[in-house]
């Protein structure tokens, strides 16, 4: 008797567990973005403002850029918000996204040990990379197809070097996110390219410091795209579009500019002027 | 204890079919390539206890299990009052080392009652436990009982089934004399109440005390079958004679 009751209760629990998402059409969207954006703390600042205004819950799934775009392609996200212009434009061109809107930029900085074995401090980024290459100083690469990784590879190419191809021993690809890369660089006394946001909020700096910054080549443009409802009909296009509209509105852009860590602004809104 | 259980009364009245006599014809039992029993012809009829007697390895336990219906013969037939299949609930079996459920004494008896289709009534459980001298032990964990107590609990369980035939396999083989006497007294009482007892033993003394009829086995063959008195005073066969005299029958 008791067993039958328990079995029924269990079946009920299972049924409610499985159908809950379908039944509760909650006011939320899934945004796939990058770990560096998440780690910077920007979302923690601007999303509550968006929710207050519209009542929409934004659930951020933070992955590497490649994975974020793939998640959007599969229809597992409603909006994608990353910083890899070429890949984003391809995404829209292939029909997976509706339209790409520029939102903001932050910049990359070259981080390295205070001892600076390759003597890169004060140089421009391309000369710095050449110096690291010639000195064979340890360099940590994210190696994970992220936006930061793409930027790093682009810079090596501009410096006419190819450590990712020749894989010398001083070039260490870890296949992980920005935080892990900084941890590794700190432990190894190595150089690493990082976005300023993650660097400022990174708490384990110890022997590392910024050695190269401000070079225009280091600017990192963010774009936001609504996943195409024609490819994935379930996409929450109204809520998604509301999010995009807010990001590029004066209100959203101001919120982005307001976000500071230790008194420093991380992201520079450029929805009107950027590309 | 009632002199005749409700079931046996019903049998006597022809209301429920009896499973006796149990008839074995040309029964063989092989385990793989080893022959354990060979050419057994035997009839077990209602009445006082039948004891399967013989040295270790003579096949007594196997024969008992065959008659119970726990295993099937590799050759030959077994019929129950002429029928191929026995009636459910008509028989019960006490194993040499009875298996105690990992529960209390009372729960073990209750389990047996439920398995026999009877209500696990607390008063009935108490009555059965009193029958076997385990009164008041309801809440003890069954596996913590002594060997003799476990054997008696096994008896309480089989009595809960109100069987027509009760099989016991060397029930006192590992018990001390006091426990042995307790068990034998219970068996004798059960026999007098109308339940047919079929039990195995290699103990001559026990056979003398309990048997009404002796079936003597050696090396897988039925050597001799006789009323107890006749068997012990004038064994007909050589092996039987040697066994009764206390010699090893190889």
């Amino acid at each position: 008797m008791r067993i039958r009751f328990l079995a029924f209760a269990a079946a009920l629990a299972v049924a409610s567990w499985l159908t809950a998402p379908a039944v509760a059409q909650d006011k939320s969207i899934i945004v796939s973005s990058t770990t560096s954006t998440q780690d910077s703390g920007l979302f923690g600042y601007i999303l509550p403002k968006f929710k207050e205004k519209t009542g929409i819950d934004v659930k951020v799934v933070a992955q590497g850029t490649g994975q974020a775009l793939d998640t959007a392609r599969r229809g597992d996200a409603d909006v994608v918000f990353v910083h890899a212009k070429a890949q984003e434009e391809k995404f829209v061109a292939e029909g997976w996204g509706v339209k790409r809107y520029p939102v903001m930029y932050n910049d990359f900085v070259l981080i390295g040990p205070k001892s600076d074995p390759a003597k890169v401090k004060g140089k421009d980024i391309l000369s710095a990379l050449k110096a690291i290459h010639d000195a064979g100083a340890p360099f940590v690469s994210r190696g994970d197809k992220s936006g930061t990784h793409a930027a790093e590879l682009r810079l090596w190419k501009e410096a006419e070097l190819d450590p990712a191809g020749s894989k010398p021993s001083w070039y260490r690809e870890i296949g992980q996110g920005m935080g892990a890369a900084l941890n590794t660089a700190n432990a190894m006394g190595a150089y690493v390219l990082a976005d300023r946001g993650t660097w400022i909020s990174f708490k384990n700096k110890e022997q590392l410091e910024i050695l190269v910054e401000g070079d225009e080549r280091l600017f990192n443009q963010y774009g936001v795209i609504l996943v195409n409802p024609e490819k994935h009909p379930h996409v929450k296009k109204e809520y998604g579009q509301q999010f995009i509209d807010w990001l590029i509105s004066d209100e959203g852009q101001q919120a982005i500019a307001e976000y500071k860590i230790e008194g420093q602004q991380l992201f520079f809104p450029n929805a009107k002027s950027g590309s | 204890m009632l002199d005749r259980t409700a079931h046996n009364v019903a049998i006597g009245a022809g209301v429920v079919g009896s499973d006796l006599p149990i008839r074995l014809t040309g029964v063989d039992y092989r385990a793989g390539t080893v022959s354990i029993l060979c050419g057994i012809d035997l009839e077990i009829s209602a009445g006082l206890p039948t004891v399967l007697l013989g040295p270790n390895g003579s096949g007594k336990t196997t024969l008992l299990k065959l008659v119970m219906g726990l295993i099937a013969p590799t050759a030959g037939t077994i019929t129950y009052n002429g029928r191929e299949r026995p009636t459910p609930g008509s028989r019960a079996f006490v194993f040499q080392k009875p298996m105690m459920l990992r529960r209390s004494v009372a729960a073990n008896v209750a389990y047996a009652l439920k398995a026999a289709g009877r209500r696990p009534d607390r008063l009935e459980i108490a009555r059965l436990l009193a029958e076997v001298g385990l009164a008041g032990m309801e809440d003890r964990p069954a596996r913590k009982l002594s060997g003799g107590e476990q054997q008696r609990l096994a008896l309480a369980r089989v009595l809960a089934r109100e069987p027509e035939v009760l099989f016991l396999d060397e029930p006192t083989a590992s018990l001390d004399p006091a426990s042995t006497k307790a068990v034998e007294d219970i068996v004798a009482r059960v026999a007098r109440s109308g339940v047919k007892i079929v039990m195995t033993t290699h103990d001559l003394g026990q056979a003398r005390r309990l048997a009404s009829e002796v079936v003597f086995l050696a090396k897988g063959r039925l050597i001799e079958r006789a009323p107890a008195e006749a068997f012990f005073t004038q064994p007909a066969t050589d092996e039987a004679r040697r066994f009764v005299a206390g010699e090893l029958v190889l």
Partner: protein
Amino acid sequence: MEASSALELILTGDATLFAIVRLSLLVTLSATFFAALIGLPLGAIVALTNFPGRHAVIVVLNGLMGLPPVVVGLLVFLLLSRSGPLGPLGLLFTPTAMVIAQTVLITPIIAALSRQVIEDLWTEYREELMAMEVGPLTRVKTLLWDARYSLVTILLAGFGRAAAEVGAVMIVGGNIENFTRVMTTTIALETSKGNLPLAIGLGMVLITLIIFVNALAWAVRRWSEAHAG
């Protein structure tokens, strides 16, 4: 020092920390419940019935105990993704997906170990239950009940395995703040950010939980020896 601020977070009942702990327990307890619902009867059936390929099934079940959590995460991800067969359910990146993944992870453990326990018990009970002419359903119920202490220990083992894993819940849950973040994924995230106090605090809670679960398993054994023999 980081450990002291970690302790502070625990003792002052930091809301974030406790929300994460609550979700972790909810997910893992649910998964253990469903895994038991599937795994115990499965183990009993394999233990007690004879069917062609039985030995192969036992070998496979035993092997699946060692399923790497990330692999389970990947498989469930492919299943639940919108582009996958169960996409329309919209379950990816939800706590439900995490429960499903962990259930898949520990069901083999519960099934394989309970099969062993029940089979051993059946060997012991077989003749007696046959003599009592007990039907197949009753046999299963009898064995499950009499094996209860061993089975509880098995469930605790399953719980421990699920509570400690990070690969499956990370992939199918997406580690979404305030939604699918559990102890293990938060430890991974905060460590990678260099934010060690929260990571250490959660680590301490997790270790305490695991120790507690093991102590419980030990206590169950002692109780069973005293009371059921």
